[in-house]
């Protein structure tokens, strides 16, 4: 288990960097942070008040200490637009974003990995070229544009998808009792099948739009990694040992290809978390991304800062998870750690 601790410790520098940057973004930039924090409707007096209240009249290191103290207490300040603590706001909206991201990832992985494997078993065939072309085209589409196109085609033209009104059409359905905050899970727990179906239906288009861009990196690395492990010495041994084709492809080649694939997942998460913001905007999804956009436009700075921090922490944790998954796949990594 010691490697788990080592990996956990390894996240400390990243987290420290993240905290310093979010601090600098809010406290050390040109312009008057107090004016930002006071909001657009502030006058000189209220700005001075905010400055004193936030301790912005103190020296930078002292401010940093205060900032750390606040973080330790889980205090990210108050949002100007909602009047609530930013932490409360974010935690309330986080499940929506996680749900969307999760489904997008599942979509991307479920399409891209078989595609990559398939292409790798027939390099330079028609299948290979079609996969490559599809993936390259998908990579050129901005997520928000894909989101809108899908709404236009599947909602407006074909009427196959439900109205893009967010997570659930609350005129027709009631939100399931809160357990995890994810509607699909909560309705499953409540055994409320119509709501489960409705919330899944709402998820399809946004998850596909979000996942589409992630197809390219995952499919490309899967193909490359599969080609490499199919051409490797141990695959040759497996073939010379007369193992079945399926066994060679999955137990031997694919498992070995998984490590490079899991390594690009970090990049994929970076993208998914960022593009979440755009997709939530398109689909009226009540997640932290949509919250952040409103906050940015309203110069609600504490909210923006809290959002950036939360996303970064989330990202570091996801990377840790991928890393740990990698050690499960590859005993060598476990050994080195």
């Amino acid at each position, binding site marked *: 288990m010691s490697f788990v601790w080592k990996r956990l410790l390894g996240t400390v*520098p*990243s*987290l420290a*960097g*993240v905290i*310093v*940057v*979010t601090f600098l*973004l*809010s406290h050390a*930039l*040109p*312009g008057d942070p107090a004016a*930002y924090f006071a909001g657009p409707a502030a006058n000189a007096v209220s700005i001075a008040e905010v400055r004193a209240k936030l301790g912005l009249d103190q020296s930078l290191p002292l401010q940093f200490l205060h900032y750390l103290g606040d973080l330790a207490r889980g205090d990210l300040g108050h949002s100007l637009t909602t009047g609530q603590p930013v932490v409360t706001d974010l935690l309330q909206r986080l499940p929506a974003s996680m749900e969307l991201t999760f489904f997008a990832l599942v979509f991307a992985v479920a399409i891209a990995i078989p595609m990559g494997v398939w292409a790798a078993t027939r390099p330079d065939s028609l299948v290979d070229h079609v996969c490559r072309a599809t993936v*390259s*085209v998908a*990579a*050129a*589409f*901005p*997520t*928000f*544009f894909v989101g*809108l*196109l899908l*709404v*236009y085609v599947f*909602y*407006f033209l074909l009427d196959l998808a439900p109205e893009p009104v967010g997570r659930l059409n609350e005129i027709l359905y009631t939100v399931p009792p809160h357990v995890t905050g994810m509607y699909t899970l909560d309705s499953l727990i409540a055994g409320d099948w119509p709501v489960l179906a409705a919330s899944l239906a709402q998820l399809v288009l946004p998850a596909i739009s979000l996942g589409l861009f992630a197809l390219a990196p995952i499919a*490309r690395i899967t*193909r*490359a990694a599969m*080609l490499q492990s199919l051409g490797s010495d141990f695959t040759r041994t497996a073939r010379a040992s007369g193992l079945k084709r399926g066994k060679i492809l999955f137990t031997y080649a694919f498992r070995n290809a998984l490590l490079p694939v899991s390594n690009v997942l970090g990049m994929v*998460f*970076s*993208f*998914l*978390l*960022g*593009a979440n*913001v*755009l997709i939530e*905007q*398109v689909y009226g999804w009540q997640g932290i991304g949509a919250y*952040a*956009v409103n906050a*940015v*436009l309203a*110069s609600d*700075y504490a909210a*923006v*800062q809290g*959002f*950036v921090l939360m*996303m*970064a922490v989330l*990202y*570091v944790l996801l990377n840790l998870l991928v890393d740990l998954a990698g050690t499960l796949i590859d005993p060598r990594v476990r050994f080195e750690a």
Partner: protein
Amino acid sequence: MRDTTLGRNIVHAFGENRLTLVAVGILLLLLLCAMFGQSLAPYDPLTTDGAAKLSSPSSTHPFGTDALGRDILSRVMVAARLDLGMAISAVVLSFTLGLTLGAVAGYFGGWPDRIVGRLMDTIMAFPLFVLAMGIVAALGNTELNIILATMIINLPFYSRFARGEVNVRREMGYVEAARMGGNKALPVLINHIIPNILPPMMVQASLNMGWAILNAAGLSFIGLGVRPPTPEWGIMVSEGASFIISGEWWTFVFPGAALVLAVFCFNLLGDGLRDLLDPRRRI
């Protein structure tokens, strides 16, 4: 020897791969729009026409008009300047700064290397688009700050790449020879190492360009940086979005398509250039 392989690579990349040539052609067209869009466009991109609101594509308005009756074709053409301009400036800045930081880190090692490395790791610890949002929000909602934010989130790719390449080359014969010949560190770096890592860095840059365009457009899509009525593809898509449920597709499809085209062509160009440099690395 070197020339013949390079020659063969050019034939391979551009002869066998006509797509790259097509991409270059389209990019040139877009650059033309970026430079002379204002005078090439059939209408003024800002002039509203109350009588021709939301008219569908026709011979007078090939891409239709928007809610204020402005000609979408003209707006898409003129917008090329801002979109490509922001992305190219961000990439050029990122390239220069990243090359400098990475080369210094890779050549000297020691504490410059550690500082640069830490800095890049910190940038990479954020989901990059989120960091860009944070930067624009903190620095102020302007076009310049979009460029700055896009530059910052691109920086680690160039810096790490340059560091790695310099590190490898530092030990190579020709650099060693130059150093033995009494050359000082900086001239060796500038005259002998950097010219050799420029080509692969260029490939990286052109592969990155599409991503930079997507980032800048994404930021303006959510309302950062560019303000209406300035023509810009991201903001035009966002303005057109409200007409989806009434079926006026042309309001967002054409600016969106322009974005896709630009990104796709830059990606193709990047792939083509990479083949040119090293055909084996094709995946």
